[in-house]
């Protein structure tokens, strides 16, 4: 997967990260922080390669 523009989204009214917005293989998507989700698994592998998820606004 080609992973780009990876950024956390927080739960409204809190500072808790709740999902990730990113572009994977050219498609903008909203990825849950679910270890069973294949896109989240790919993002974790991407992080393990030395990349960083941008903090939420």
């Amino acid at each position, binding site marked *: 997967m080609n992973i780009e523009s990876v950024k956390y989204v927080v739960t409204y009214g809190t500072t808790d990260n709740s999902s990730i917005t990113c572009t994977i293989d050219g498609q903008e998507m909203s990825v*849950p922080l679910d270890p069973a989700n294949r896109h989240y698994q790919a993002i974790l592998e991407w992080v393990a390669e030395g990349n960083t998820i941008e903090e939420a606004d």
Partner: protein
Amino acid sequence: MTKAAELAKMGEVLTNSQIGGRRNIIINGAMQVDQRNSGSSVNLANAKVYAVDRFYWIESSSETPTGQRVTDAPNGFTHSVKITNTSTTTTPSYTQLVQSIEGNNVSQLYFGNSSAESVTLSFYVKSSLTGQFSASLRNGASNRSNVSTYTINSANTWERKTITFVGDTTGTWTTDTSVGLDLIFRLDDTGGTSSLNQWTATGDAFASGSVRFMGNASATWQITGVQLEVGSQATPFEHRSFGEELALCQRYYHEQGRVETGHNYEGFVIANAYTTSAARCHYFLPTKMRAIPTFTATGSFELLGSSAGSITGIALADGGGNPSVGLNISASSITDGHAFQLRSHDDADAVFTFDAEL
């Protein structure tokens, strides 16, 4: 077959519990459900691409075959999936059509235990090429595999093939929501194993001497009627209703909009504004999905209602959910506290997708 032999075979089938209840472990084996493409051709690539539901294509590099659900099928079927080679690449590490089966759906095989069950694969196949091809089973960790072969005898002719795999008594086989078993039809590989019809501690999926599909320009390969069942006998294909098959597929992928309706304006959800720039809604999935799904919104959308502003983004809210997914709609200049209908805006291709594939 003599009557006695027929009765003996029937007895074996009954002993193995192959009659009664659901037999086919494969979902969408008749290639009827194609939520993403509705029969349109798709370019296959080195990322998972679904030519029909539940069956994905993956390759090691960027060859450019196409995949398509077509209506050419053997008697008793209405569809098959067709792979067409558009180049003459001869050096891919691998190219393959795969169904990844959730561990929950293969726990009855007892793989990894001394009482592991044999399973029988059957399918209809048609190709412009003849000769030996490969089919294999593999665990989710890709460190246990069993490679077998089938032979296509006549070009461009539907043929039914059956392969029985003995159960794997060792190795790690998951029985949860992760990949329990991969069914792999590998069509090309630079290597190949000669250890056939036995379990090995490898990720092999290609038999040495098999046809190299990608080296044959314009070659085609089609498949349908895919069934994987417990036991050593292939029984007739288990036809399920379209609604049942669609529901099984929706555990892994669901979408609303796009080609299913063809309407330029289609209602998706009702949302209420909680600020002047954001609204929330809950989208109820048709079934609980395998995992909390990835969400995409593609196309043009609008909010109907007083003072409704333009939409700047739609994304998961509060981590999503399953089977009720929270969505957050970012918009400009909406009225706090008002409710709105979110609909597609002059866009028949607008679509929500929910992906919990393996």
